[in-house]
């Protein structure tokens, strides 16, 4: 009964989306404004129904209802409850339902809380949101029904891919999807504003919090995914330039550019057409990413729910939405006047450089990801991977860091080059000192990590400069947000540079009783024992690790065997210190009781994800700060009129 109710809720939600589209259309264009008051309640009801459908699917997974095909093929009654719960979205149908539910609820949130937008633009936005939702409802209901039954039900399920049986599954996909699909709101805003000719600073101020919220979640989702891959895949890598990673990076790059251009539009009423274009591109990148991941057209380490036949369905949706939005853009853009041009020395210029560099990186990632497909069409299989992306995106990202340092220290509208140079003096001195110190340090490092580390130090200092000589208590919260987010970029860059420059790797085949020494660590391999978890057994090594003669800490690298489906995974043992992470992986038995082990000491590697968290935190402070200020202004205005 639960499955049927869920399916009914989905159909009803789809019908409401259709109604929402019609109400908005005829209300705005058909000369029936009396229809418009119904749009918001319908959007809210639609969002609630998708939430209900999603909650019902979770219930089916928690109950291990094997009469539902999706549960039978992706779950197992012996799994711990957390993985039954999170397993709901560890498969194609479930993750698409999550997508649709987030989209429905995002629409409902826009209907409920958006107050700043002009009314007709608001209605057109909700109509656009309904139009996008409809395509994904069709996809879900016609080709990916998560509630299909199986008769007779099997005695138990086939289980979830053991690589996914990790607390990361509970956090990473939902966060990433909230970000991905949250960008659909920016897309709908852009379409709504184009339709109602409302692209201006007020529109930008209304759109900014939605972009910011989606971007924060996307940042967190990518950071979490990177850390998860780092500890779960067991090779110490944190970014592989894999197609699925690129698929999540592209919307983030577009959203980051959008976040900065929307600020130019909100503050200076410039970059109108460009901002609208970026809003369209950002969500288009989410859809392209989903298509690449779901269709299995590109092979990936992280693709866990792939079906080539459904790829063509998504491709059609892509063509309709992206093509439609671009056509609308081309048709209406002439009605959007560009704002005033900028002075060469102004914050706007730095933000334009930011947008240019981010767009080029986005283009490079997109082309690099799709290039193997194109050459394959000509019968030539090539691989494009880390060597290409590092070499192209690396220098562009470093140039971006320079803009990041200088932008906040330059005034809006017009500034003097000499004043900007004076404000950048301290970071520049730090840059020179760091460069000299690293050049004479007794370590071998590549050019890119060296540049990265030097820039990270200088940019880290520069990012704090906007707070100098200000009264800290009176500085607005969103300024702190910017400072912390920019500092996060420098921190993350420092982590990346340290990891690639200073990591020490040691591969050994050790017997119990052996002692291994590497990078100041002493590891005593005590013993190896079998242990059992809820749905796995494992061989676990007991090792005592001590650094430079300090007190030993016991660590437990494991090699796990899962019965359903039969798979072996490595569970790395991680020992985190303030200055780095010890990473130990237990491999196979090579000969008489000698065990293969991989040991890494990774100085300051944790800064990569700490930086990611800081970036998201900065975003959150900016969001709260802006909303609070808007609320305060309104409150003061009301009090003034009452007095």
């Amino acid at each position, binding site marked *: 009964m639960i499955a049927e109710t869920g399916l009914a809720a989905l159909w009803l939600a789809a019908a409401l989306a259709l109604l929402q589209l019609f109400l908005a259309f005829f209300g705005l264009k058909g000369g029936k404004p009396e229809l418009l008051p119904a749009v918001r309640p319908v959007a809210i009801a639609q969002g609630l129904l998708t939430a209900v459908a999603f909650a019902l699917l979770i219930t089916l997974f928690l109950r291990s209802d094997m009469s539902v095909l999706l549960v039978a093929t992706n779950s197992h009654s012996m799994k711990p409850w957390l993985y039954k719960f999170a397993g709901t979205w560890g498969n194609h149908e479930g993750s698409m339902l999550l997508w649709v539910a987030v989209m429905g609820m995002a629409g409902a949130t826009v209907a409920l809380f958006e107050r700043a937008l002009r009314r007709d633009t608001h209605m057109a936005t909700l109509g656009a949101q309904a139009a996008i939702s409809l395509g994904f409802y069709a996809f879900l209901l016609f080709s990916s029904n998560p509630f299909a039954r199986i008769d007779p039900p099997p005695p138990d399920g086939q289980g979830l891919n053991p690589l996914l049986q990790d607390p990361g599954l509970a956090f990473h996909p939902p966060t990433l999807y909230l970000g991905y699909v949250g960008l659909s709101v920016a897309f709908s805003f852009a379409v709504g504003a184009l339709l109602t000719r409302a692209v201006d600073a007020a529109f930008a101020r209304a759109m900014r919090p939605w972009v910011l919220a989606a971007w924060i979640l996307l940042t967190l989702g990518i950071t979490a995914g990177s850390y998860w891959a780092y500890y779960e895949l067991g090779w110490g890598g944190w970014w592989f330039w894999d197609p699925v990673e690129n698929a999540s990076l592209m919307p983030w790059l577009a959203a980051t550019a959008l976040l900065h251009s929307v600020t130019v539009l909100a503050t200076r009423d410039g970059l109108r057409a460009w901002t609208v274009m970026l809003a369209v591109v950002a969500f288009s990148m989410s859809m392209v990413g989903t298509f690449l991941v779901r269709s299995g057209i590109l092979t990936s380490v992280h693709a866990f729910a792939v079906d080539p036949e459904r790829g063509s369905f998504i491709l059609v949706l892509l063509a309709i939405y992206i093509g439609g939005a671009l056509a609308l853009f081309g048709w209406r853009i002439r009605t959007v006047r560009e704002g005033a041009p900028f002075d060469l020395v102004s914050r706007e210029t730095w933000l334009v450089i930011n947008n240019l560099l981010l767009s080029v990186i986005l283009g490079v990632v997109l082309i690099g990801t799709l290039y193997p497909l194109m050459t394959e069409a000509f019968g030539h*299989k090539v691989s494009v991977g880390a060597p290409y992306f590092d070499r192209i995106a690396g220098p562009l990202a470093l140039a971006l860091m320079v803009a990041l340092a200088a932008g906040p220290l330059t005034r809006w509208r017009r500034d003097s080059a000499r004043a900007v140079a004076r404000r950048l003096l301290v970071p520049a001195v730090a840059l020179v000192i760091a460069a000299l110190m690293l050049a004479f340090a007794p370590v071998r490092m590549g050019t890119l990590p060296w540049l990265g580390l030097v820039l990270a130090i200088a940019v880290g200092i520069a990012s704090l400069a906007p707070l100098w000589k200000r009264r800290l208590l009176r500085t607005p919260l969103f300024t702190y947000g910017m400072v912390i987010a920019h500092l996060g970029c420098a921190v993350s860059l420092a982590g990346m540079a340290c990891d690639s420059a200073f990591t020490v790797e040691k591969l050994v085949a050790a017997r119990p009783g052996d002692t291994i020494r590497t990078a100041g660590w002493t590891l005593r391999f005590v013993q190896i024992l079998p242990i059992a978890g809820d749905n796995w057994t494992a061989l676990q090594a007991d090792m005592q690790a001590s650094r430079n003669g300090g007190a030993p800490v016991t660590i437990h690298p494991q090699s796990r065997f899962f019965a359903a489906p039969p798979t072996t995974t490595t569970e790395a043992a991680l020992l985190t210190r303030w200055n780095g992470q010890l990473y130990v992986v237990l491999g196979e038995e090579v000969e008489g009781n000698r065990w293969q082990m991989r040991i890494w000491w990774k100085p300051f590697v944790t800064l990569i994800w700490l930086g990611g968290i800081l970036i998201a935190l900065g975003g959150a402070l900016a969001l709260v700060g802006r909303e609070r200020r808007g609320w305060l202004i309104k409150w003061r205005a009301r009090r003034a009129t009452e007095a």
Partner: protein
Amino acid sequence: MRYWLALLLALIAGPLAAQTALPPAPWADRQIPDAGQERQAKALMETIRCLTCQSQSIADSNASMAGDMRSQIRERIMAGERPEQIRGWLISRYGDWVSYEPTADPILWPLWLAPLALLALGLLLLRGRIVRRKDA
């Protein structure tokens, strides 16, 4: 009880784990004693694609074939071959696909030109948007 169950399951799982343990490749997970040679080998491995996995380099893959290839690379480096020779040998054996490092093949030229073209396009679009200060 839990302990015996674990042992039992470990025994059942044993053959499954053993299936991947093909004839050992001696240098698959063993470093070359010379640090410089190991660094060369490692750098090469990071740019060679594992042929049986999904989009991973052989430097970070558990597949047995990746282990064989790592072993091959280390042995050849120790025998004094240069990394680019070994890459050439791997490409002649498995095709361009095996190398993540884009070669000078004309089919890859657009890939290298793409960033420049994008940058030029961006600057073209910006032309006229940023003005020089008229009064100083």
